């Protein structure tokens, strides 16, 4: 039972970061391959503040998230004006840089040996509350004006610009929001495992999150979340097959991309309107999710 609870908690922590990825990739169509490094930054800054400077948990968390957002701003600044390829390439380099930095600063972070002795502050209740808050945040963002602008620029940046959308600004907002959520999930992660090391946050981790979003359906938040729970909990249950994990992931996603490109859930959302529709048959006013553009498939 203990094991299942911890597996479930890890899956839920991933949900928080995937919410961030969903804003970036699902809504805006950008890919960050250094997203896991922002998780590392969140984890390390909060950990160092609490362990080395005896700060209480919550101020440390807030500082960690804010610092990550500031770093995200510096990384995003040159890239949001350019083609979307640049942000993936630049964040990939960023990830390498952060790993090198963490490995080098042995005195503060413990280097490649890892950083241990973080007190366990994250419990199941905190994780559940965080998950609910981040899902609500992203769900409301999706149906808000900002979310619709993001979706518009995802399909066609030039057309979005012509409609008066400030494309660089929207890209920056989406990037920073996702950085904030990922950094927060890093804090949760560090204070749950009580131990972090730089190798946990390579670009494979970021790629895995992108894969989860696409598996569930790039236009569906519900799908992304369910896919995350499924894909991060299942392999933990089948520990013995850990070597084959990435292999199965990749085959699954290649199949999805080739044969069902809109993902398992396509554009379905488990919205209040949908639930209301389930109870009131024949009511056709309940569809609010038709905002996504079919052309993008």
């Amino acid at each position, binding site marked *: 039972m203990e094991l299942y609870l911890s597996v479930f908690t890890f899956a839920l922590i991933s949900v928080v970061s995937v919410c961030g990825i969903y804003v970036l990739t699902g809504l805006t169509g950008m890919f960050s391959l250094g997203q896991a490094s922002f998780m590392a930054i969140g984890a390390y800054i909060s950990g160092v503040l609490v362990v080395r400077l005896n700060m209480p948990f919550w101020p440390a968390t807030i500082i960690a998230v804010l610092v990550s957002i500031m770093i995200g701003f510096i*990384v995003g600044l040159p890239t949001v004006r350019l083609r979307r*390829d640049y942000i993936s390439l630049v964040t990939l*380099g960023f990830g*390498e840089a952060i*790993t090198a930095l963490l490995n080098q600063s042995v005195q503060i972070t413990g280097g490649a040996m890892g950083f241990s002795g973080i007190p366990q502050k994250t419990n199941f209740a905190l994780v559940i509350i965080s998950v609910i808050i981040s899902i609500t945040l992203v769900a409301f963002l999706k149906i808000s004006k900002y979310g619709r602008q993001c979706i518009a620029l995802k399909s066609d940046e*030039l057309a979005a610009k012509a409609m008066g959308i400030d494309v660089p600004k929207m890209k920056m907002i989406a990037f920073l929001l996702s950085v904030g959520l990922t950094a927060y999930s890093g804090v949760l992660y560090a204070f749950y495992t009580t131990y972090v090391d730089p190798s946990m946050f390579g670009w494979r981790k970021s790629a895995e999150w992108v894969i989860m979003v696409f598996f569930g359906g790039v236009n569906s938040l519900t799908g992304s979340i369910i896919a995350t729970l499924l894909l991060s909990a299942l392999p933990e249950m089948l520990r013995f097959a850990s070597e084959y994990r990435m*292999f199965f992931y*990749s085959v699954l996603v*290649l199949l999805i991309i080739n044969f069902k490109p809109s993902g398992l859930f396509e554009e379905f959302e488990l919205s209040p309107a949908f639930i209301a529709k389930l109870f009131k048959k024949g009511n056709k006013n309940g569809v609010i999710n038709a905002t996504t553009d079919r052309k993008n498939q």
Partner: protein
Amino acid sequence: MSLQIIINGIALGSVYALIAVGFALIFNILKFSNFAHGSIMTASAFLGYLFAIKTKLGLFPVIIVSMLSGGILAILGELIAFRRLVVRKASPIYYFVSSITLGSLYEAIVTIGAGPNFYNYPRFFKKLVISIGNIVISRSDMIMFLTSWLALGLLVVMLAKTRIGRAVRAVSFDRGTASLMGIDTIHHIQLAFFLSGALGGLSGVFLGINYTLYPQLGNLVTKGFIASVIGGLGSMSGAVIGAVLLGLTETLLINFIGSGYAPVFTFLIMLVFLLVHPQGISGSNVQEKA
């Protein structure tokens, strides 16, 4: 010993140039960043290693085997990951996810086959270094340098002068029009993938000789990406210049501040470069078309 540093830097830069050009080939023809390139590098380097162990032949047969297997892996990848996207004219984000996934797939296969161990290529030379005056050039660096530039030169001649090269450029420029002119686009996309994979295989062998061979060797592909960002995405000459500059900078940094912090500084240099000169050295990056 500044001349020594420059020579080492250029040798390193020429391998980065191979990576960056292989990446730019695919970027030009399909307009997406091929993140599977690193894993193709690793996989073909491993195949070359197996060949070297089994047959005990010299360096050049190994290079040829690696290049061929790199090319074949890339064509195979095109078939399973990108063909349907090309036919469907899918949006670039699908190419992106597909390439990441293909990369993970190849890396997973290599990891399953090789385990997390480190491997060393057999020693190909009896004498390891050549000394001219007080400058010492390692033989592998020398061969690395010569072969890389030979391969790049052949590629340029092929793209610029031959009929096939012209067709590849036409497909890169505008796929629709090229196919109206009677060019078999799929065929030429395959060719571009083969060339890119072969360059990847070549760079994989050199990286394997220079460092050691392990399943995550493909992470070094980041250097090629950084080089092409500095050079201007999609420009081959830019990629080569960017790669040589990166090789030089890295060697200098390693000499003066140690290898640990080198990635941090190369990243900062790239970031500053993008801020002040976003179009890259070549001055023309690909804009998103309407």
